[in-house]
């Protein structure tokens, strides 16, 4: 509104609704999804990350539909500029005198197509990675693990490209806002722009907007419903892995003193050595009879990490050099990398009690599936939300560290 106080050569200026509510909702929900997905890219928040991703995909699908039926300024037909026009507009903007468009300008239109395209590709590669690496989602089983990992890399690369596109988009909005002396960000919130009289106004489309909100809330409620009904004894598990091979004797003997670590967590050569050394099993004599040793060894070798029964099995096995035979899961590089951010304070807390207690955090440790997002770091009840908030805040600060002031800058007293 401040820009309107400037002297303007056009005598008659009126306000008209240019962006209908669905367009604005789409815009800001897409922004929220992108930020949320970025902050939850750690495996631990996979369920939140997936919700943001699915919502983003749904929003893009909606926008494609809305681009056909959405009324003036929202329809693709209203901003179907060619490449030459976009480049021409950009050159004019660089010279400082771009023509003013009421709806999307030609360069901005290409930005929108680029962002919609990138968002779609990110959603597709995300689903491919989810299906290939984790074996979840609608595309489960379509790709194998190495292919899924490739899709994952592509997914991350595309996200960075999209972040770059967002930066260019923001720069464009800023430049145009300054050159035309108008608040484009404000317009995307209120929907209104200053326009010459007689300009076509967009309808508000409240019912569509209401549907978007209700659908999003309903989807969020059903997606996260498990958290509402969980109990401390039965925490909600967003992902249930496929059931792994089991063996009663293995579970009884190994599970008597510690968690029955699933065979998929170490290669067969490690289990064989461990079972041969059963008289000095980490300082204890297991005193197992030969037939028990044989049965357990066979079960473990048959389902060891090489069989790639889980994502963790595959990644653990990949991280072990073939010349090495680790006897502890915690010695494998994948395990070390995955747990590098866990502080000593957490390891030593009474509820965790050391690295041997997988089940302290991994809700599915007993099943051996070690799904992403099936983990909770135990904290005191009254602190849990604060800790989670701090963690998210630190992550946000790390990713967007260029926003914070240099910490050691001396005051300029001159």
């Amino acid at each position: 509104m401040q820009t309107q106080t400037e002297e303007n050569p056009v005598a008659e200026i009126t306000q008209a609704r240019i962006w209908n509510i669905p367009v604005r909702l789409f815009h800001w929900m897409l922004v929220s999804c992108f930020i949320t997905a970025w902050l939850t890219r750690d495996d631990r928040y996979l369920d939140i990350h997936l919700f943001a991703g699915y919502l983003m995909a749904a929003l893009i699908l909606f926008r494609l539909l809305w681009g056909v039926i959405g009324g003036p300024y929202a329809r693709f037909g209203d901003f179907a500029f060619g490449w030459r026009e976009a480049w021409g507009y950009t050159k004019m903007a660089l010279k400082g005198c771009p023509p003013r468009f009421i709806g999307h300008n030609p360069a901005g239109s290409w930005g929108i197509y680029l962002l919609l395209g990138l968002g779609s590709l990110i959603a597709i590669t995300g689903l491919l990675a989810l299906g290939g690496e984790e074996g979840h989602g609608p595309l489960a089983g379509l790709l194998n693990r190495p292919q899924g990992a490739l899709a994952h890399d592509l997914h991350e690369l595309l996200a960075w490209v999209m972040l770059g596109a967002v930066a260019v988009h923001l720069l464009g909005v800023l430049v145009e806002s300054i050159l035309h002396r108008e608040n484009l960000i404000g317009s995307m919130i209120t929907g209104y722009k200053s326009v010459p009289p007689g300009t076509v106004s967009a309808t508000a489309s409240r019912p569509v907007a209401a549907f978007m909100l209700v659908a999003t809330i309903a989807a969020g409620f059903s997606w996260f419903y498990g958290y509402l009904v969980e109990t401390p004894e039965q925490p909600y598990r967003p992902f249930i892995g496929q059931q792994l091979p089991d063996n009663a004797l293995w579970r009884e003997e190994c599970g008597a003193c510690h968690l029955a670590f699933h065979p998929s967590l170490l290669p067969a050569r490690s289990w064989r050595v461990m079972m041969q050394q059963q008289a000095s099993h980490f300082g204890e004599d297991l005193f197992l009879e030969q037939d028990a040793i044989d049965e357990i060894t066979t079960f473990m070798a048959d389902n060891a990490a090489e069989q790639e029964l889980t994502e963790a099995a595959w990644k653990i096995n990949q991280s072990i050099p073939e010349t090495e035979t680790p006897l502890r899961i915690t010695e494998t590089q994948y395990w070390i990398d995955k747990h590098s951010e866990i502080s000593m304070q957490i390891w030593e807390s009474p509820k965790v009690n050391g690295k041997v207690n997988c089940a302290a955090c991994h809700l599915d440790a007993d099943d051996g599936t070690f799904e992403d997002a099936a983990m909770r770091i135990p904290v005191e009840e009254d602190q849990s939300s604060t800790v989670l908030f701090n963690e998210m805040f630190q992550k946000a600060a790390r990713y967007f560290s260029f926003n914070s002031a240099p910490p050691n800058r001396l005051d300029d007293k001159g």
Partner: protein
Amino acid sequence: MKRKLIVITALMFVMPMVVQADAISQLQADYQAKGAGPFSAAAGEALWNKPFKDAKSGKERRCTTCHTTDLTQAGKHLRTGKVIEPMAPSANPKRLTKIKKIKKWFVRNCKWTLGRECTAQEKGDLLAFLKSL
């Protein structure tokens, strides 16, 4: 027919106790055959609470380190934190019912706690003590 069912049901309740008595008395008979006995619950209890010094770490170890002093309650594995079900047969009827299991745990736990295997006398006393709980 009905009577048969009653008998079977009654047996289902009695059987575990019979088996338990069997496993313990059979083992104690074995120990006696090796020259040990008679067995006393008091001696078993004394051994249960007796501290032993671990040669390597220099730390004190007792049966109670993991099983705690209240055997009707669950204990906790010192290193892994794994819950150990109560030792007292009154609180955990499955306890001391399988000869194989008793033998295995005597080897494992005597070696860890005492630094050696237990003697037949010690094992017989411990069983007498645990049986009484």
